[in-house]
């Protein structure tokens, strides 16, 4: 998780640095992407889900699988 987070942070800093016109909107949207990536990374590495996204959605619609 630590390596993953560091990689994402480095990637994000590089991308923001390379933005041609650093408008606030671009940086905010990028930050949202960054947070989603970190959240998904946390879910993947710490594995708090009982099942997977497929099973959750299938169960939500009450589909036998």
């Amino acid at each position, binding site marked *: 998780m630590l390596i993953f987070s560091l990689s994402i942070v480095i990637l*994000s800093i590089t991308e923001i640095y390379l933005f*041609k016109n650093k408008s606030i909107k671009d940086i905010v949207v990028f930050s949202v992407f960054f947070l989603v990536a970190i959240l998904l*990374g946390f879910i993947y590495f710490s594995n708090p889900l009982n099942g997977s*996204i497929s099973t959750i959605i299938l169960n939500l619609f009450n589909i036998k699988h």
Partner: protein
Amino acid sequence: MSSINNKISLRQALLLFLMFLGSPTITLVPRLTNESAKQAAWLTPIISMIFFGLFLFVLQGFYKKHKEKSLIDIFETIIGKVLTKIVCIIYFLWITLTCSITLRYFAERLVSTIFPNSNILVYIIIISILISYVLRGGIEVVARMNEIFLGLILIIYLTTNVLIMPQLKIENYFPITYKDIMPVLGGGIIITSLWGFIIVVFMFSDKITNMENIKKMGLKVMLFLGFLTLMSILIPLGLFGTSFLSNISLPYFMSVREISIMDFIERIEASVVSLWILTDFVFLTVLVYSALYVFKKVFSLSKIKPYINIYMVITILLSLLMSKQIFELWDFSKHISVPLNLFMGYCIPIIIFIVGKIRRKI
């Protein structure tokens, strides 16, 4: 027709569509249509062609007055800014979900066929890096590259089909009675749902020239696609028969394994694997581009380039979280993806088209 001013031609766009349907057509279609229509599965492309042909008239209607606009801009003209943003966010989520499923299928197929006991993450990361790299050149690079790939893919596909033909048993396609009408309709809907991905290509139709010819060229592509889909069903069905086919996870791949030329040349299934890799690569590239393009339109962003890498990271993680086993993914595709694709690919555009006609915007 080459790309002009960072734009691609309608022909190139439709070739992208033709190419990216290759992988689901040879992996999902034979199995799912056989489950639904049994020995009559080979009739299912006819149903899809009828639905798709009618849908082309809807698309032609959209581009009659707005041939230079993207589908998102046309939606905005018809249903207003706020509703378009909501629709676009739904499309973005749908494309992202499809992208993560495709990425997972790609890796799972490789592991289950030619690289057993290897880690799927390796293949997911490799293709993601490749997609990120290629997309930096823009969609026109992908479209041009696709023209070369498609020729190669068609040669492989048609050659393997011709080689396997002597082994097909005609009795496996019959009997067909009036009782097969509903199952064939059900199977046809599965194929139709896949063809609904044409909407993904037209999300960036402002980057496509000659959009006014969509009906004419679309019908040609539809006939060709119908033929290719028919072949992908006929081959495994004729070779294995409906009862045996229902127990095979990758029917077309298994069919090609049976090819033996004078007991001398065998095991040419690696060609099918190259076919998967190329078509999946094009499919994923178009999906990522389309998703980011929709996102760019929603938030009026300047460029999509800076978001490619971080979006690929999200897609990789989603693909890993998607399922623990391949069976879950099959169930998800069958019960969720098929209706979802029909809704996103056909229902939403048709509803907006009707609204546009009522409001006389198109």
